[in-house]
């Protein structure tokens, strides 16, 4: 067992009603690194992380976690930040309310948030630059601000592994800087951060490792060794992949 890997995906195949979306994926993601998952649209990036989180059932294969805390309930150690689309923003809740929701699995049934929980919530709000907004009703927030609130909500879970689905998509420059600095400091504190990313131009500056997929695994490893023009071509322009010779790039 490789202790340096946070997540181990083996032989993972996932299919939706008529189409296969992931084929026989073998990939590992290192602990304490900022990893980007790259691939064209419809290539299975979101599916991969949903399969990792157990939100969809694969046709074959498995996903394993390696936590530092032994015997951990994986719900506590893995935090998921989805794309912010599907929430009703007119819901009666303040920014602080939403962030506190991230503590619920720690607080447990029947109990109220403690002072520690509230302090933690305010602290993470400060980290994302939203401390002044804590009493604001969430419908009054801009898109970038909403994204930051979701990020704070996941930070407050104090998880070991963070999985995020395109957190930088469509946000303003200020938010992007705040978020990526935050992700880097999370990585420095030893957390494993896995991000589905859409912007090739920023990969070298932001990330340590990449996983490049297009329905199947194309390449994965450190940015410096694997994020090459050839691999980018192979990932994003499928038909140049020579199947029969079985050429893979490690």
């Amino acid at each position: 067992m490789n202790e340096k890997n946070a997540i181990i995906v083996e032989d993972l195949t996932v299919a939706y009603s008529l189409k296969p979306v992931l084929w026989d994926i073998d990939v590992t993601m290192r602990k304490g690194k900022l990893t980007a998952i790259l691939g064209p649209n419809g290539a299975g990036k979101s599916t991969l992380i949903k399969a990792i989180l157990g939100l969809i059932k694969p046709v074959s294969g498995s996903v394993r976690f390696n936590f530092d805390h032994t015997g951990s309930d994986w719900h506590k150690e893995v935090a998921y930040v989805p794309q912010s689309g599907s929430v009703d923003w007119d819901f009666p809740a303040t920014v602080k309310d939403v962030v506190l929701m991230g503590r619920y699995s720690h607080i447990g049934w029947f109990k109220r948030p403690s002072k520690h929980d509230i302090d933690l919530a305010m602290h993470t709000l400060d980290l994302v630059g939203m401390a002044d907004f804590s009493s604001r009703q969430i419908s009054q927030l801009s898109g970038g601000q909403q994204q930051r609130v979701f990020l704070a909500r996941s930070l407050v879970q104090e998880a070991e592994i963070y999985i995020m689905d395109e957190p930088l998509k469509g946000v303003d420059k200020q938010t992007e800087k705040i978020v990526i600095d935050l992700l880097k400091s999370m990585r420095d504190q030893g957390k494993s951060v896995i991000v589905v990313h859409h912007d090739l131009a920023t990969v070298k500056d932001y990330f340590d490792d990449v996983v490049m997929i297009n329905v199947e695994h194309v390449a994965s490893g450190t940015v410096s060794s694997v994020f090459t023009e050839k691999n980018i071509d192979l990932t994003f322009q499928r038909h140049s992949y020579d199947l029969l010779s079985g050429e893979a790039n490690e």
Partner: protein
Amino acid sequence: MTCSAVKQMNNLLSLLGDYTFQVVAVGSCALGIISGISGSFATLRQQSLLGDSISHSALAGVAIAFILTGSKTTEVLLIGAGIVGLIATYLITQLSRFSKANFESVMAVVMSSFFGLGLMLLTYIQHLPNANQAGLNRFLFGQAATMLSTDVLLILIVAVLIILTVCLFFKEFKLFVFDRDFASDLGLPTGLLNFILSTMVVLTVILGIQSVGVVLMSALLISPAIAARQWTHHLSSLIGLAAILGGISGLGGTLISSSITNFPTGPAIVLIISLILIVSLLIAPGRGIIWQRQQLHRAKLNVAADMILLHLLEVHKSTFSAADFAAIHASQAPLYSMDQLVKNLQERHSIEKQESLFIVQESAIQELSGHLKKEEPDNA
């Protein structure tokens, strides 16, 4: 006090002391309270009309319960209504998912089919081709006046249960309704929470139809919550306020219907809560219709004032007299009077009056400078 006022007062007092009235009033009030609570969750889950479906489907449940048990007691009938209500809810979700048909179309069809089934069973029971019976009326339009103290006891028990449940699971319900996916990520049992919330609504509906009837139930479920939403953006206060408004309408409706002859209770309750809702929608601070109109008016006024100010800046620079203003105002012929515009600009600290002149403030100049004529850019 006049003679008739004294008489009315006495009537009122004797009414309040009347046992039957007390029973019905307490029952309707409690129903209003639980409707407010359950309705808060139903509306937030975008399931406003599901209560309507459940109440129409409940008719079949009532009939089936009677056929199976031969008992006409409220508890038995309502259990039947409840089970069928839950089945109907389940059917609606499953059928719309499988058929890819519209949720609301499926809701309408399930509702009318179950109601039709209810009618068939009721006429079967009575062996009449005509479904005109007192038993049917009771559930169609509600007959709060026939509420027994045992019925009210049941309502109070359910009310306590619901309040307890909401208090215990408040934060879990809150998260579940706000962001179901995140709730399941955290490991919350979303299926269970869904079941509890649905059951709350079903219970509320089947109890409520006794007082307001099948057709009007959706208003009692939805209106208190929507009215409350206009006044607060905290979930806890919303639920509390909705409960209070629901209770008031229940009480008030009973009062009115008992004081005026031939005034039916159910509609009275719905009338009150609808009026409360209308008023809330109109005057809610920071949200309501009147506030929206004011904002719109204000925005237009701001624009008109800025336009005038722009002209003044271009012609007179940052200092001008009232006469200058009047001249420009006359030439522009805007929709607002000069006084209105001057007042607007002063309130927004765009201009200041010093003796007989107006000075345009730096901040305003900065803001508007983008619109002032720029120097022509150099062409390479």
